[in-house]
């Protein structure tokens, strides 16, 4: 279990400290620090349709997109659950199954009240009568932070809606929204097959809105300061700030808040690079490697797309030139194969086969066809799972094949480097935790 509470990277006093402002300005995570920085949340006294309309409009005008990974326009998601006749459930997604991401832990330990403000505002706007804050069952520190914050709010008379802390199993895919909803409905935390993409999620016909903790924190600020304020930083097509988790050969690894559009090289420099970087993993373990020559690319969805990357879970994990990209990718792919929910054949068998090919290549134990076989298998697996898990691995491995092409060719010719025996740079949770089928 990795329960070391992550630190908000202390040195990274950003120019645009918004979501993390209370933490940076007061050094406190309690209700007093929160109120001193942000004031009380602008919640109407009673049900107010006009207020709810305005909040959703403001979120839309702000141009906020979901910070959980998919990057879908948040206002449209809010609107989709407002039209129904039943009171929806709001699920706050703070599952953070991504091993290299720490932002949910940083949010819940540093600014829990901003997240809870956002949850209360959104729940009120969509007519929800209860809130479920979902924290993985191996993140006791985070759950404790939420419970402490909730009792502070109750004492201060700030909470109006019943809010529960829910503890789904901590696995890579259990934060995927259909898996989360399946667990909240009493089943296993398995991703669901949805024949039509974007079918609304329900529990016994009650609509469920799943919003990431970071998205809610931004909404809490938009409700206070308005859309123009939100848009005053970042590029017009991707305004605002976002949280990134920087790791690798840097003096200050951790979570920092950056204006969207900041060049990735600048983000790494601010974190204090200590060694030359050979490549950067962008997004998460279902993300893509970026060659070091492209680090000047602005960190925003548009520019990232031109270099085949995406914001994803906000991970920026650099590896030094002394490490082996083939071995790092092989370890991550093995972890990801073990994290399959075991539902779809192409994921169950395909990811293990892909991971095995990679491990053989990393160790130099491959036959002459290993690279070809791997490439073919990626094509076979792609697009054939119920959720995006296998596609994420395909994306990661394809980018590795391109960024570390020279290394792969060397390895394939039975000239492995010593990378496989090095300590991994990218965190891979111990296999004991993942081997056991714990899904409920």
């Amino acid at each position, binding site marked *: 279990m990795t329960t070391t509470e992550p630190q908000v990277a202390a040195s990274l006093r950003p120019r645009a400290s918004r979501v993390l402002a209370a933490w940076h300005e007061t050094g406190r995570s309690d209700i007093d620090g929160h109120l001193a920085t942000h004031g009380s949340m602008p919640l109407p006294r009673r049900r107010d349709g006009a207020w709810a309309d305005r909040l959703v409009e403001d979120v839309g005008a702000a141009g906020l997109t979901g910070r959980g990974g998919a990057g879908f326009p948040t206002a449209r998601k809010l609107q989709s659950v407002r039209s129904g006749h039943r009171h929806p459930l709001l699920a706050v997604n703070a599952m953070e199954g991504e091993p290299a991401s720490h932002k949910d832990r940083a949010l819940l330990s540093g600014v829990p009240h901003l997240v809870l403000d956002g949850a209360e505002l959104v729940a009120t706007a969509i007519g929800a009568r209860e809130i479920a804050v979902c924290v993985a069952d191996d993140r006791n520190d985070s759950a404790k932070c939420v419970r402490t914050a909730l009792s502070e709010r109750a004492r201060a008379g700030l909470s109006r809606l019943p809010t529960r802390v829910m503890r789904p199993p901590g696995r890579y895919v259990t934060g995927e929204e259909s898996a989360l909803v399946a667990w909240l409905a009493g089943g296993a935390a398995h991703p669901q097959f949805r*024949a039509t993409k974007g079918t609304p999620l329900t529990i016994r016909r009650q609509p469920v809105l799943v919003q990431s903790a970071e998205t809610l924190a931004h909404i809490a600020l938009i409700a206070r300061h308005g859309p123009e304020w939100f848009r005053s930083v970042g590029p017009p097509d991707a305004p605002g700030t976002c949280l990134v988790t920087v790791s690798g050969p840097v003096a200050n690894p951790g979570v920092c808040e950056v204006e969207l559009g900041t060049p990735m090289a600048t983000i790494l420099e601010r974190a204090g690079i200590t060694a030359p970087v050979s490549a950067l993993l962008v997004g998460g373990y279902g993300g893509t490697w970026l060659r070091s020559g492209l680090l000047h690319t602005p960190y925003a969805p548009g520019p990232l797309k031109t270099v085949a990357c995406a914001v994803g879970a906000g991970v920026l994990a650099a590896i030094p030139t002394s490490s082996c990209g083939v071995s790092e990718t092989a370890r991550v792919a093995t972890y990801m194969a073990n994290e399959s929910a075991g539902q779809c054949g192409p994921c169950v068998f395909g990811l293990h086969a892909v991971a095995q090919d990679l491990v053989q290549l990393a160790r130099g134990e491959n036959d002459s066809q290993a690279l070809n076989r791997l490439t073919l298998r990626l094509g076979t697996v792609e697009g054939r799972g119920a959720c995006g898990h296998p596609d994420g691995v395909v994306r990661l491995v394809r980018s590795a094949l391109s960024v570390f092409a020279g290394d792969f060719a060397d390895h394939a010719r039975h000239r492995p480097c010593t990378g496989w025996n090095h300590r991994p740079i990218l965190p891979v949770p111990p296999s004991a935790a993942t081997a056991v089928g714990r899904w409920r």
Partner: protein
Amino acid sequence: MPIASFSYRLRVNPIACDAFGYCAELIPEIVLRDEWGYPILREGPIPPRLFELAQRAVRECPRRALFIERIASTGP
């Protein structure tokens, strides 16, 4: 504006599928199998001459994993 017409495609629920392979036996023109036996469905609409076979594959799938989906397309 052309008159809208419909065509159909075969889809599989990958969670339900257990690689029995009946579909690939019935309509190899549409369904291939990967190295583990799971179906790979050819993209695009079901050719009309194969439609009845596709319906049979749906009916006979032991896991009820196959289904036919109507897709909108613009006419000829």
